[in-house]
């Protein structure tokens, strides 16, 4: 504790005092000694503090400035080393912070509820359809509420949209329909006013609404007298009764503006439409395991009781935090974590390697310094200052990188992935990374510093010629490089597998030509008094207006964009065919389209006919099915002429034709399983208008809005974009994730190359003498180069071997994410090592060349 100036004196005094007392009373003397030591602490701290401030030989600050000046000079003299270490660390910090922000956004998310650990998310599952995060049907939910005992309260909600009128312009507002139990289950009492009372979620109750906190602030400026005012949603007056807790605006509920009661109890509860998100708060005595078992049993019972709708479907309950991401997401997150850890390891290995090499090569410089009287502390401090300067520079660049990467991810994912939006740079993660990255180089710098200063100056000076850090140092560096190569290869294989999967996915035929198609969405208010006639006539007029506004050759209408959206998922029964017990019913996606839709997209009518104007309310209901669904459910015959009954409908639909496939939005090589219905028979409130035009989306937006408002000033227009953009947004979050992996892989490859280069260049510089002698004795240039290259290649080959084993093991886990190739895809497993070895060779040949270009006479004379 004491500064060195007083340490010896003090110890001497203590010893003397102890001796004096010990002659009379040994235990007493011991007690005295201990007491003295303890009581010395404050004085020692004071002395130490003071000697920091008044250093007898110049002030502290002077030495620090001097250290920094030396440090700068040293780094300036080896710009390669400085640049590479700073960039390596900076990238590591940037990537690390950005990814861990993503992970922590999911893992430590502030869920919109109090005590989220005792809240479970209840999901619908269907093994046959590979759905494990499905929603729950109203019928099943209502039975669950009656039958379950594990939950103190249950709540269901679904996202909804309304058109809000009564303001200056009609406004589309997003919101939530929630059952009355929501505030109890999530334990989020309203900020002002009250939540939904029992009975307000019944059919026929007066219409009430709550505002979300954000909307209350934004539109009402946080006025408390807003209670009792009314909101006109889809032409129905809703009385405002309260404002929700700000935490509710979470994840996909981020933009919610209003919350209205979810009304489920009209008519026979529907079981075939699954759209409810169900959460439950565990009862006092219940556990998650018990709740899961109970919910599962109820699901099995329901499947027995309602075979038509529920066969194949089950219910599952899990802690809400675990349910934030699906199983594929879990795998991805695991991979991201692994990857980031690897990247960090590689980066650290590189910096450690360089610092080690540098420290050993500077052993001589340090020895000279200590021989000239620099204390050991001074030399160590000098080396540490250099490490710290690297850290600080790297941290600055790294934080900027993290920020940029975060923005880039949000941009690439086009706002389609809530996880990316949640992952604002996390302060906790950032500070953690900063601490680690400030400390890491110091730790790596300290080890070589201590080693360099530990050796006596005499030894280092005498042995100045070899200064190799000995066999041990060499082996340590070789091990680091081998590990780097192995890690880099593993990453490259994973990235290549994912890239090829995504390439395969986007190479699937679209089934139509998306170029020159402009899309926009209009959702009519679901007002009670709009008849199908009204809706149809609105869209007929809108179509003409759009056609005129952008000079389109043709305009078609559809309620789900091909290859970007899915239609309404429905199971159906084929007339005359047995419903097989215990097997899921046929299912497809119902898409409503205008008569000319197939022509518009250029989908060929392969069997029967397309829609005709004569398919109207007066004629029998018809459907056209896609090639894939025909092949799947009518494998050995032509479906034209058969009749199907789609769940939720009483009438039978006559299949009149089969059209060509459009690509499925899901990750499958099958075409979309579509059942098309003509708009003339099935009016919809929300439709896309598709226009073939040369005008781009930006220029068309204004005229399009005006055109729609010309038809009806009360209709909001949404999502004006090109078909290509719509397709991109469908895959955007995949692209974002993919670009992350590719970034990592390229980064890892670069790092490994730098590592190999560093080690080889260093080893060559240490062997200058040997090479000089060989050359002087007449060795062929080629053979000398070969000797050096072989040495480097040995490291790479061992690394590649280890990496292949690791990559092979890891790729098993990728299973569900890989599409169109096997997880042990030969091209990947040969290509990635080939690229790596090629890069490694280049990193190897440069120092080898340099070695043989040296003039042997000069290298020999130099020593």
């Amino acid at each position, binding site marked *: 504790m004491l500064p060195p100036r007083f340490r010896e*004196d*003090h110890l001497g005094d203590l010893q003397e005092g102890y001796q004096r007392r010990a002659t009379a009373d040994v235990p007493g003397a011991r007690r005295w000694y201990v007491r*003295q030591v303890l009581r010395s*602490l404050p004085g020692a701290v004071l002395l130490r503090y003071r000697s920091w401030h008044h250093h007898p030989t110049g002030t502290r600050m002077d030495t620090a400035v001097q250290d920094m000046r030396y440090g700068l000079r040293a780094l300036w003299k080896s710009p390669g080393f400085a640049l590479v270490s700073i960039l390596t660390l900076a990238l590591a910090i940037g990537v690390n912070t950005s990814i861990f922000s993503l992970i922590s956004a999911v893992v430590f998310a502030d869920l919109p509820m109090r005590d989220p650990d005792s809240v479970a998310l209840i999901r619908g599952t269907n093994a046959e359809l590979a759905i494990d995060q499905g929603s729950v049907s109203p019928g099943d939910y209502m039975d669950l509420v009656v039958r379950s005992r594990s939950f103190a309260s249950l709540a269901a909600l679904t996202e909804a949209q309304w058109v809000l009128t009564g303001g200056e312009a009609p406004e589309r507002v997003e919101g939530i329909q929630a059952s009355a139990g929501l505030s109890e289950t999530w334990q989020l009492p309203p900020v002002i006013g009250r939540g939904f009372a029992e009975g307000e979620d019944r059919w026929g109750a007066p219409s009430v609404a709550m505002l979300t906190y954000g909307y209350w602030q934004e539109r009402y400026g946080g006025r408390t007298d807003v209670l009792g005012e009314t909101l006109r949603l889809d032409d129905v007056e809703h009385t405002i009764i309260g404002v929700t807790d700000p935490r509710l605006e979470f994840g996909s509920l981020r933009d919610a503006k209003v919350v209205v009661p979810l009304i489920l109890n009209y008519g026979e509860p529907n079981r075939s439409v699954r759209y409810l998100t169900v959460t439950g708060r565990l009862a006092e005595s219940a556990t998650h395991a018990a709740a899961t078992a109970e919910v599962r049993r109820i699901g099995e019972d329901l499947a027995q009781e309602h075979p038509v709708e529920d066969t194949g479907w089950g219910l599952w309950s899990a802690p809400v935090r675990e349910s934030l991401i699906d199983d594929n997401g879990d795998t991805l997150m695991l991979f991201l974590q692994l990857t980031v850890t690897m990247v960090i390891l590689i980066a650290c290995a590189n910096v450690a390697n360089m610092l080690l090499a540098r420290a050993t090569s500077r052993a001589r410089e340090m020895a000279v310094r200590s021989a000239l009287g620099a204390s050991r502390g001074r030399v160590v401090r000098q080396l540490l200052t250099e490490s710290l300067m690297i850290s600080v520079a790297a941290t600055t660049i790294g934080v900027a990188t993290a920020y940029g990467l975060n923005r880039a991810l949000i941009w690439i994912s086009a706002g389609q992935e809530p996880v990316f939006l949640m992952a604002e740079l996390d302060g906790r993660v950032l500070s953690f990374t900063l601490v680690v990255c400030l400390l890491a180089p110091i730790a790596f710098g300290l080890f070589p510093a201590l080693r360099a200063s530990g050796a006596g100056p005499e030894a280092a000076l005498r042995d100045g010629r070899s200064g190799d850090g000995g066999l041990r140092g060499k082996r340590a560096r070789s091990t680091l490089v081998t590990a780097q190569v192995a890690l880099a290869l593993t990453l490259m294989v994973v990235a290549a597998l994912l890239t090829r999967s995504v390439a395969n996915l986007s190479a699937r035929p679209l089934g139509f030509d998306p170029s020159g198609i402009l899309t926009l969405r209009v959702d009519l208010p679901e007002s009670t008094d709009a008849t199908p006639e009204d809706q149809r006539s609105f869209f007929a007029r809108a179509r003409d207006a759009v056609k005129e506004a952008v000079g389109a050759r043709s305009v078609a209408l559809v309620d789900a964009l091909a290859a970007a959206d899915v239609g309404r998922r429905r199971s159906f029964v084929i007339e005359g065919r047995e419903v097989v017990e215990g097997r899921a019913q046929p299912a497809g996606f119902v898409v409503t389209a205008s008569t000319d839709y197939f022509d518009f997209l250029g989908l060929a009518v392969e069997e029967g006919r397309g829609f005709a104007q004569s398919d109207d309310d007066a004629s029998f209901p018809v459907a056209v099915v896609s090639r894939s669904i025909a092949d799947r459910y009518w494998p050995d015959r032509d479906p034209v002429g058969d009749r199907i009954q789609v769940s939720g409908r009483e009438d039978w639909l006559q299949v009149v034709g089969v059209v060509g496939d459009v690509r499925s939005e899901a990750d499958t090589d099958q075409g979309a399983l579509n059942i098309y219905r003509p708009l003339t028979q099935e009016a919809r409130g929300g439709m896309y208008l598709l226009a073939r035009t040369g005008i781009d989306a930006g220029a068309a937006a204004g005229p399009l809005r005006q055109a729609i408002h010309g038809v009806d000033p009360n209709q909001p227009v949404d999502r004006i974009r090109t078909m290509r953009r719509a397709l991109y947004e469908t895959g955007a979050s995949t692209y974002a994730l993919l670009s992350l992996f590719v970034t990592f892989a390229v980064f890892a490859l670069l790092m490994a190359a730098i590592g190999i280069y560093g080690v080889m260049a260093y080893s060559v510089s240490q062997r200058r003498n040997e090479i000089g002698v060989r050359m002087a004795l007449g060795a062929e240039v080629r053979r000398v180069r070969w000797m050096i290259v072989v040495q480097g290649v040995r490291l790479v080959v061992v690394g590649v071997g280890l990496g292949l084993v690791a990559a092979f093991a890891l790729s098993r886990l990728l299973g569900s994410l890989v599409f169109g190739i096997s997880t042990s895809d030969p091209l990947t497993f040969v290509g990635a090592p080939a690229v790596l070895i090629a890069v490694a060779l280049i990193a190897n040949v440069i120092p080898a060349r340099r070695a043989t270009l040296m003039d042997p006479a000069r290298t020999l004379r130099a020593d």
Partner: protein
Amino acid sequence: MPRGDFLGEFEQMLLLAVARLRDDAYGMSIVQELTETAGIEPAVASVYAALDRLERGGLVVSTVGQPTPERGGRAKRYFRLLPAGAHALVRSRAALGALWRGLDLDPDARA
């Protein structure tokens, strides 16, 4: 000197002990002297801390002596009072004396 020109009580005691010990004032002997004469037993490190400060103020000077076997072969650091130190002691005593003049305090008397 920090805090004006006057010495603190502990500083005065230390300087007086150093003065009394003449050529034999080092850490342990100063502690001994303070214990025996003044009845306080400070930690050796606080003695060093205070003397270090006085040395910076130019009131004492320290020299390193020869190692002795009873100290485990460690050297003693001897302190010697400088004229400035003697001056400061005298001035402190004069100031205190002036303040005491005419006072007759009885700590045991009830107010």
